[in-house]
């Protein structure tokens, strides 16, 4: 027992506090990551190598979380515009010098490492918008809305052009969610909704063929069972054949026999649903809901506007992540290439997510300091 400010603390409480972490959130994240590893082991065909690689990525993510959690909010706030500008600059750099991978120009090769500048934007965007809006009076006015729209639209368009619809969606959502949480008048959202409805036909003409194909396939996957519709059909078969209780861990035939494409990345949810059934799915949704809820609670408790906005946006973006991924894997939404957060195999998005949780932790621990 260590005594700090007259109260008795357990060792773990002391450890969390000195590391500036929120225990509840940390436990939820850890549980999801463990679950993710279990599903991944199955989806990769019991590949220990894949497991090891994912564990090293998780380690990198945990490191990012620990580091970000220690950054004082004031520093983070001061850094926000610079981070945004850097991210924007890098996005332009991708347009000019980016590496092509899998038919899209997303990567920037810095000699030592290759990375996607669009990932930086996932955090830089809400930070920037929150930074800007926290300088202004609340609720945001028309002028604010105009400025923020530009801040959002430019990077989103750059990312869409790469093309990376999924990330563009998440970056755009992160920015919009800040405006929403900042208390923008409802009628503006109504207007935005109408505007989007008006823009859709325009967007359609601007879309790449493969993007249009994804949407068309979504509407009628059976039209192209061996081509574009294959993903969704096989995914639905996997989920549906899982039933109430699932086929059991490592027993999902759709994934084990490789009928399910992209089973360890974007479609990992189908593997989970096949092996753990509807009950497993409900458990997963509860876990996600708790994480979002805990994040929003941290946001709501924050005394400063910037903290509330950034914490709220990060939490809700996480919700968008999972809802869109589950929606597309179950055939409700177009396949836009968004991974299942904390479970899908893949490094970059995991590190970004963990850094985002680091910001939540920082907000949480600052609040604790303020309350003291």
């Amino acid at each position: 027992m260590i005594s700090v400010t007259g109260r008795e603390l357990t060792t773990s409480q002391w450890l969390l506090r000195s590391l500036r972490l929120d225990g509840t959130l940390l436990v939820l994240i850890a549980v999801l990551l463990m679950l993710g590893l279990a599903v991944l082991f199955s989806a990769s065909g019991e590949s220990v190598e894949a497991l090891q690689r994912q564990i090293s990525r998780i380690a990198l993510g945990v490191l990012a979380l620990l580091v970000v959690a220690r950054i004082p909010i004031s520093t983070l706030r001061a850094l926000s515009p610079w981070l945004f500008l850097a991210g924007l600059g890098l996005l332009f750099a991708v347009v000019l010098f980016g590496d092509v991978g899998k038919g899209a120009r997303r990567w920037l090769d810095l000699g030592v490492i290759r990375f996607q500048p669009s990932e930086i934007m996932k955090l830089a965007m809400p930070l920037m918008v929150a930074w800007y809006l926290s300088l202004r009076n609340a609720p945001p006015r028309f002028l604010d809305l105009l400025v923020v729209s530009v801040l959002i639209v430019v990077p989103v368009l750059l990312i869409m052009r790469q093309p990376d619809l999924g990330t563009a969606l998440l970056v755009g959502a992160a920015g919009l969610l800040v405006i929403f949480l900042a208390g923008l008048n409802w009628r503006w959202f109504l207007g935005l909704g109408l505007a989007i409805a008006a823009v859709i036909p325009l967007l359609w003409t601007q879309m790449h063929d493969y993007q249009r194909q994804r949407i068309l396939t979504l509407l009628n996957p059976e039209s192209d069972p061996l081509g574009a519709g294959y993903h969704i059909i096989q995914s639905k078969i996997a989920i549906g054949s899982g039933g109430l209780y699932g086929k059991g861990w490592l027993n999902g035939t759709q994934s084990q026999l490789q009928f399910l494409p992209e089973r360890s990345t974007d479609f990992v949810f189908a593997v989970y649903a096949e092996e753990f059934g509807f009950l497993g799915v409900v458990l997963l949704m509860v876990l996600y809901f708790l994480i979002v809820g805990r994040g929003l609670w941290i946001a709501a408790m924050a005394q400063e506007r910037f903290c509330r906005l950034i914490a709220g946006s990060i939490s809700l973006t996480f919700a968008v992540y999972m809802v869109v991924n589950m929606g597309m894997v179950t055939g409700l939404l177009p396949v836009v290439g968004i991974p299942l957060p904390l479970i899908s195999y893949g490094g970059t998005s995991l590190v970004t997510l963990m850094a985002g949780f680091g910001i939540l932790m920082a907000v949480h621990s600052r609040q604790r300091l303020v309350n003291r």
Partner: protein
Amino acid sequence: MLIDRQDSYDEEGRDQRRFSVRVLVAMLILSLLLLALGVRLFTLQVGAHEHFTTLSENNRLRIEPMPPTRGLIFDRNGVLLAENRPAYQLEVTVEQAGDLDELLARLSGLVELSSLEIERFRASVRQRRPFQPVLLKANLDDETVARIAVARPELPGVEIEARPVRHYPLGEDFAHVVGYVGRINERDLLRLDARNYAGTSHTGKTGVERYYEDILHGTTGHRQVEVNAQGRVIRELSVNPPEPGQDLTLSIDVGLQRAARQALAPHDGAVVVIDPATGEVLALVSNPGFDPNPFVNGISHRAFAALQSNPHKPLFNRALSGQYPPGSTLKPVVALAGLEEGVTTAEHRMFATGYFQLPGHERRYRDWKRGGHGWVDLSRAIAVSADVYFYDLGHKLGIDRMAPMLGAFGIGSRVGIDATGERPGILPSREWKRSVQNLPWFPGETVITAIGQGYMLTTPLQLADVASTLANRGLRVQPRLLRALRDGSNGETVMQPVRHLAPVNAGDAHWDAIHEAMIESVHARHGTAWGSIGSNPPAGYRIAGKTGTAQVFSLAPDQEYDEAELDRLLWDHALFLAYAPAEDPEIAVAVLAEHGGSGGRVAAPIAREVIDFHLASRGRMAASGEAP
């Protein structure tokens, strides 16, 4: 300052409350979205569970046919005529192969691929079932197998499979009896049971292989396997093994078949040997033969064209499909008709001049012998093959009394042998001519029919059958190639029964007369086969026979037949039918040598060799039999 601060606190508090409202709204929306997802998942996983389970099972389970092992074919002494040899072949699973052109280009560096093989491969690729391996090249040698095996890691979808391939070890000598199997083509698919042939690549195309296809093929088994998305079998779930085809033991005697072919060798033609007691065909030769083995996996266009354009027509089965005028070989049958109808008697004699004229007609029907044979009775007429005697007999009988006897001996209808390709020949009659040519029958046609010319056509098999019927004094036994069946699973052998056809009814005395006449034609000094058999008779037995020299080319009435002056393709066919030993017949033989010339000089010695060989192998003939 204080007020400002107070304001700012109030402001901060309002903002926080507003934020909380927004958070609550967001949580509400999120809950609704999760509820929607939950409903969706519930419909998929609980509502439509059975539907998707079925789809999932269809994905992962596959019923694979297990082709049965084809039955073997043996000769009567157990010599293998058709076997299944393991052979390596190169197969490609297109779904795994990626770009086909690239793969073929890479493979062509390792294995010689003809344009025909590539063309066939592409055709099969279009017809294949998904994930079914497609044959690219058959019969790989060990070196090629090794080369491909080394390079296989860079060749996705390429497999080397050991599969049984039909092989005919005795090749050419038996191609016309055993036939061959070949790849199943679209025409075959129309007659084959698709379910039972699901895993079978080859089917009998000709001969016994075709006739006994059902027995040889067996029953296809099935196994249920679990496959992955690439179609690769992960494990076997259940097996219903195939039932192998039954082994055939043919009545053919390999030694006799070869001896017969050797005896016939320089000539194109046929030799058919039948055991008159059982109908078992001991030899069925059509010369030239061909090697059936290249046909199994598809003969090249060039090789096939060469076989087809060969003037000796090696692919043509003369024994079953060749239809020839029987010439004088059927004179005994015509004589029997004359005796039975009471038109002539064994004792009746006539003076045979060099020609015959129908009453009131100018046209002279010439005898083969200038100047004629002088006084002949029926027996001598057969022995010397006096055409004029038979012109006269034929004219007296008329076609309406001659045709039924010929028909009773099986002329004009298939004997029903158990191999493919048998032709019926032609039995001319008034009705036949009316239906085919829509013309009335002329008396002159009767005259030449009596010496086996004109419209009448017979196959060598029919002639052997006639010889067998003569040997049996009218008892007709259906000729057959199958002697016994052996069940592959329990090794049980079932002998095939003797099948009788409607007998030829004639009086004993009449049979005796014909029998004696046929012996006379071989063993009497004036007999047409005296020169080649009777003058140097076999020890211990006699042969009853009848020569025939069938015209291919009609000579003008004043023309002489002179081989030296004629194109070889216009030479007469040499024929001989015989049975031996004459007193207790063990074999009946028919020989046809296309454009061989004289039946007595060319065909009779061939039959003699065949008979000698057979009876020697049965211990009938003394070792000194060949002595002059």
